[in-house]
């Protein structure tokens, strides 16, 4: 038989009922596309995914929030520019900035929404080559101490899909220097900068490390057979699962 793992097998989920108790909210805007994927990622990591609707005015009792990719309200103006004013966003912003430091992960359009919401600095503009790009992207984890990266190690390289049109991260030099100095560059593109992002930055965090945003899609790399492939043949299709196990560990572990 083949040594290549079969796809579609139920990914081994640690029998940890304490993880299942952790509730991760997944926000859906009308144009959100990857909400089902984010919810699946939470489930595969052992947690419980809770659907949140953009028009809701309460966050409920979720322990963390994921703002998935998509086109929120169509993004005809500027990606995320309108979404930041959604009723639910103000609750998320408050909770992220509160004493309790609600863990928030923004993926792709979610990252754009987080910068528009000023939870994270900088902004995203059109890719330097002006085209949509979908590829399996290598990232280096630069900070394995955030709420969403504790299950990785500093310097670890992972492969997750990247797919966007407006993925070029920009900020002024002072902001970039500050991000570097404070260890808030969480992910960097390795080997190939797919969009012209300043200093190869793929993802960043806020000062407290509870809010993380990145352009690539870890939720598309959580299940054997449905994630990225590497050219050397080694299976890399679940490299993104660590995001979701990280936050569960953090929540259940009672870390701040």
């Amino acid at each position: 038989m083949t040594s290549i793992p079969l796809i579609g097998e139920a990914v081994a989920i640690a029998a940890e009922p304490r993880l299942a108790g952790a509730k991760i909210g997944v926000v859906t805007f009308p144009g959100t596309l990857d909400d089902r994927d984010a919810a699946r990622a939470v489930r595969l990591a052992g947690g419980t995914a809770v659907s949140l609707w953009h028009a809701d005015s309460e966050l409920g009792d979720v322990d963390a929030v994921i703002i998935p990719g998509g086109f929120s309200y169509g993004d005809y103006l500027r990606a995320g520019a309108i979404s930041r004013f959604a009723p639910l966003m103000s609750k998320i912003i408050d909770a992220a900035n509160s004493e309790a430091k609600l863990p928030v992960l923004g993926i792709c359009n979610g990252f754009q929404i987080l910068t528009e919401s000023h939870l994270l600095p900088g902004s995203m503009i059109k890719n330097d080559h002006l085209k949509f790009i979908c590829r399996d992207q290598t990232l280096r984890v630069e900070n394995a101490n955030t709420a969403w990266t504790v299950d990785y190690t500093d310097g670890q390289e992972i492969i997750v899909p990247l797919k966007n049109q407006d993925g070029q991260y920009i900020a002024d030099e002072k902001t970039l220097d500050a991000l570097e100095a404070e260890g808030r560059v969480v992910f960097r593109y390795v080997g190939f900068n797919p969009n012209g992002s300043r200093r190869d930055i793929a993802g960043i965090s806020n000062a407290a490390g509870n809010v993380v945003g990145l352009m690539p899609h870890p939720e598309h790399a959580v299940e054997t057979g449905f994630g990225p492939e590497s050219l050397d043949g080694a299976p890399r299709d679940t490299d993104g699962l660590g995001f979701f196990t990280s936050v569960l560990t953090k929540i259940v572990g009672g870390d701040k």
Partner: protein
Amino acid sequence: MTTETTKKFNIDTVEHAAKTPDTELPWAELGLKQNEFDEIVKVLGRRPTGAELAMYSVMWSEHCSYKSSKNHLRQFGEKVTEEMKKDMLVGIGENAGVTNLGDGWAVTFKIESHNSPSFVEPYQGAATGIGGIVRDIISMGARPVAVMDPLRFGAIDHPDTARVMHGAVAGIGGYGNCLGLPNIGGEMVFDSVYQGNPLVNALAVGVMRHEDIRLANASGKGNKVVLFGARTGGDGIGGASVLASESFDDTKPSKRPAVQVGDPFAEKVLIECCLELFKGSLVEGIQDLGAAGISCATSELASNGDGGMEVELTSVLLRDPTLTPGEILMSESQERMMAVVTPENIEAFEAVMDKWAVEYSWLGEVTDTGRLIITWEGEVIVDVDPRTVAHDGPVYDRPFARPEWQDSVQANTFTGSVEDAGRPSAPSELAAAVTELVASPNMCSKAWITNQYDRYVGGNTAMAFPDDSGVVRVDEETGLGVALATDANGRYTYLEPYQGAQLALAEAYRNVATSGAVPMAVSDCLNFGSPEDPDVMWQLAEAIRGLSDACMELGIPVTGGNVSLYNQTGTTPIHPSPVVAVLGKLDDVARRTPSGWREDGQAIYLLGTTAAELDGSEWSNLRGHLGGLPPKVDLAAERALGEILINASRDGMVDAAHDLSEGGLAAALVESSLRYGVGARIALEELMERDGVDLFTALFSETQARAVVSVPRSEEVRFKDMCTARGFAHLRIGVVDAAGGKLEINGVEELSLDALREAHEGTLPKHFG
């Protein structure tokens, strides 16, 4: 912009029409022929009103009525056995056919053309092509799960090709990526015959539970008719503008875009909104608005139902308040749906609309009169039997005859031709030929295109381009899924249309089986020139005959599709291009077979035998030759090969499989090696001796019913036994070589994978940036 809120039209009511039988109508400008106009008058017993004329003209157009092809298309419904029908839940004629997948799941898929809009305005043309086909799928009650795009452009180095290519690819991406549907494959062909007539076809596939199947019909007297989604605007009106004479005021914009403008966000919301309606069983019948807009939706819904329908046209929400009744009826504004809702469900329906912030307006209701009546401020402007609009259009037996030039084209075989001079034979020449082939416009990597599409969204994509077929998981619990491939070869079909169409089917069938799926159903998009040209009509008739015969022999039914005619520049038609999509089923997508090998030391087998078949091949195309006869069709062999590949996948006997088609064995070996960057050592001497061909022919012939597979050592005996038991030719031609980083073929100078990759992947970026 006018701020006038009330508009006055000189409305041509039914009453008025009856009183003014001699009024001149612009039927010719609307594309109707004298006999067709006379028929309308006969059906109505009076002259049509302007609005009725608008409806008939567009519904009786070639695009909507299939009047030239209908007589031939019947074969798809006739050449069907009981066995072929057993999994068909909904056949041809609905928005899309539905096939039973088992476990209570059903799948629906369809392929359509959006050729001419994509030439005029590539971005919007291609974008709305995706939008339209996706709405067809939703109309069946299904959740769309993937799209594919077979594309054919003019010569790669023609200046206009870049315009069309950039626009179409960006449009497909820009629209499709916003819908949350993975793009899992397609085709890309460059040929100067498509210069003024690119082919932009779009396929969508959706899944549903059996109980969720919805049909487009309006039944139940008193049920309400609602239009929802985007507002109706002046885009995509086409011929209707000649009816502008019915307007009094001159404040309206004089030029209207003939190509529709897409709003993917509106479509995405519409998808979610429809799925929620289905979930709550809130609609009795549903129909998308595509070609011919409200004309088509009202007449088809009413025609398919058991009664009639009454609709007030001033209730339609407008983007442009100056639109005339005729324009409103014919507008092809995108992202709209029409549904029939029982009075009890109105409230729940409105709640779903409000949740998704989708606009809607109640237009009227279902009646029991058998008439479709459309009013404007209460005055009747349309009063017709909907069947006469939607289904009883004209049908033509267009004359057709085998072209005079066909014999001389078929006699002009490649071997020995001027273009064949200096055929490669030395090791260095053969290596150069392989490299040239895989870098050529039609054989090069399509990554430049597919990297602009989201293949991941949804998390169910088990395989996508460049593998032989796209594979999507349907059921997360069981791994049940579907595989899809589309294929066509315009050159083969030009040389011999009957066979050419069968070859397209054979290749799509083979691609699906290669990935381990059991082929189940077919959808076709028949792209041809003008049916008024007897040569073209013959090509069309032969292609349909060939395709329907082959479907019967392979045991898979056609469940839907589309015909696109008049694809020509002046009097020069495109190559006849029947694009065939085959859908297959995988009980567990975990068993799907990718096209590249990975494991060092695995045995590489070639299944099938090789004949000297270079006519119509990619190699002859590279040398500028087109003549002779295409490769022989052997459907029994295709079936046998398919069974071997499916069994091998199910029983874990192969780790990689790649079909041989355009570019022959040379292309397959390079593609399988580049897939994961793992090379191979190949020796073809035994094959050459067995089949009586030279090395060049072994590499470049396009003989059908062949595939290469890589077999784990532990499975080799079992695999060989299976092939032997089935009497299918199989030959070990080499081994996978993971360490070498090269493709070694005895008699061919060594090919490094890096160099091959550079050649293969460099072509599109070089031309398109």
